[in-house]
């Protein structure tokens, strides 16, 4: 970061500096996204065979391969292919899926809403639970329950999603027969059915996210609780619950939102496993299919969607950290 002159009066200068800081972050995120697209394109273009050969199989004549290569645009130099690929993604006129023989945009358009529903539901479940656990254990810090929650969340962070899913299916679908073990369709006639089919996938995804988020929330709240103003409030006779709600939380809201955004990025990796297990028609399972069928255009687009989502979450975390930190604001 270039050094920014410190304004003498805070009023007009602050918001300008703030805007500049945020614009800097946004610009840097966009640059990273561009570089990421280059990395994804280069790696996925390095495959030993080529797509045309792969599709036609061993018995194809060289002429057939050359014709298909031309049809797919594989005979153009790499840098031009990259530019047209990038342009295609930006304008929405993306390439053709090699295996499904449909425009990639169309396939993604069908699948993306499903993934967003799953992510949204998981967020809606994870955030309140994680905030509760994090704030509660911060208030009880040092006690037995805090230590137990600490070890519990620490262990949960390292548990693979498929164990969560397996145990969940075993308990709720096999033993108790309450929930279906796979997702058969996304069309639901009633709320009950909707809840029944989403419970297990959301639960498997939410555990790791909750554990991570609760740990970061606890750290943020404990950091505030150790400040002198809390001691002051305590000495003045304010009740602990009120201290946390009225004094600590307004100050910790920045770090907490930052923690939420960063923890949600764990969803992206988790979705790949969970969507596949439950046969859920989202873009993570689509991407796994693209890998097994070596459908590069589809794979590239899915990878870019995931990278963009990840960068967006990190950017939100960054911007919130800037907005929440008065020192950064006034510098």
């Amino acid at each position: 970061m270039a050094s920014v002159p410190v304004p003498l009066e805070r009023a007009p200068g602050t918001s300008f500096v703030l805007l500049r800081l945020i614009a800097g972050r946004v610009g840097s995120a966009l640059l990273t996204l561009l570089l990421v697209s280059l990395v994804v394109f280069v790696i996925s273009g390095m495959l030993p065979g080529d797509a045309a050969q792969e599709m036609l199989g061993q018995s194809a004549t060289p002429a057939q391969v050359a014709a298909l290569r031309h049809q797919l645009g594989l005979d153009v130099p790499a840098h031009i292919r990259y530019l047209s690929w990038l342009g295609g993604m930006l304008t929405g006129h993306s390439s053709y899926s090699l295996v499904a023989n449909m425009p990639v945009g169309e396939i993604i358009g069908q699948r993306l809403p499903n993934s967003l529903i799953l992510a949204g539901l998981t967020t809606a479940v994870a955030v309140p639970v994680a905030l509760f656990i994090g704030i509660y254990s911060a208030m009880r810090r040092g006690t037995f329950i805090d230590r137990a929650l600490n070890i519990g969340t620490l262990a949960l962070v390292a548990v693979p999603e498929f164990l969560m899913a397996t145990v969940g299916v075993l308990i709720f679908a096999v033993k108790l027969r309450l929930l279906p073990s796979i997702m058969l369709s996304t069309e639901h006639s009633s709320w009950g059915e909707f809840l029944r089919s989403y419970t297990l996938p959301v639960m498997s995804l939410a555990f790791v996210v909750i554990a991570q988020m609760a740990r970061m929330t606890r750290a943020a709240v404990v950091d505030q609780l150790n400040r002198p103003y809390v001691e002051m409030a305590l000495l003045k006779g304010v009740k602990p619950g009120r201290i946390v709600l009225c004094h600590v939380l307004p100050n910790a809201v920045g770090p907490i939102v930052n923690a939420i955004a960063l923890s949600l990025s764990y969803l992206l990796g988790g979705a790949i496993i969970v969507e596949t297990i439950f046969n859920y028609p989202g873009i993570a399972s689509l991407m796994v299919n693209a890998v097994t069928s070596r459908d590069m255009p589809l794979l590239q687009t899915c990878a870019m969607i995931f990278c963009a989502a990840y960068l967006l979450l990190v950017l939100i975390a960054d911007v919130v950290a800037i907005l929440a930190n008065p020192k950064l604001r006034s510098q």
Partner: protein
Amino acid sequence: MTQAALPAAKRWSSARAWAAGLPLSGKIGLALVLFWLLVALVGPVLAPYSTGAFVTYDVFEGSSPQHWLGSDYLGRDVLSRLLAGARYTVGLALVASLLAVVTGTGLALFATVSGRWIDESLSRFMDTLISIPSRIFALVLIAAFGSSLGLLLLILALTYVAGNYRIARSLAVNLDKMDYVQVARARGEGRAYVAVTEILPNMIHPLLADFGLRFMFIVLLLSGLSFLGLGVQPPDADLGSLVLENLSGLPEGALAILMPAVAIATLTVGVNLLIDALPARTRRMGGEG
């Protein structure tokens, strides 16, 4: 580095003192990690049956005196397959994380002692790699190169090089400003000498903690990939493949699917508990990346 000179007995007792100083969670973690390292080392020798042998006509059998963990979807002994699978998981993950840490730290030291231009461009490149979620990155690499055991090893390592690079570089840049490093430079020592003799020994402890963290991430990534059918390929099987191949036993609640999944979880949870229990100055908080 006086530790190497100590006699074996003294080293053993200092190791025991170190372990005794860990909090309870750290002791549990240490026990789990040692257990799985031991299993990976001697497990296949102890296996009661050959991994490929069909030992019973009953598939997804429960626990019995002959087959402690029952039988799998083809009537093979689950315990024997688990012991062999643990060797793949632990072995591949150890080698891959070693590769990732050596490469990442090597590049970080190189960037630190080289000029600003090399440092900036290498760091920018690594920042780009960090911005790709690890599972997505691994999937793209597998789609491009396939997943034979050797390639899988490289892909696992490559996925976590950037994360280690970032940590190692921030450690090295701080050490680089220290007086004794400046003195060594003023003395006219070469870059390689400064990097290896002055900087590296002083960042070894945080690097070991980061090695443990990379190991845990790689175990999770490898098992996830194998579970998706994209990792270790049959006839070889790691713990993730064991979960996948016995997926049809899920409706029966078979031990054959539960035990490998529990095995992976105890390994990764053990590593995580151990690293978290290390003294704060040794540990560096490293996120997924």
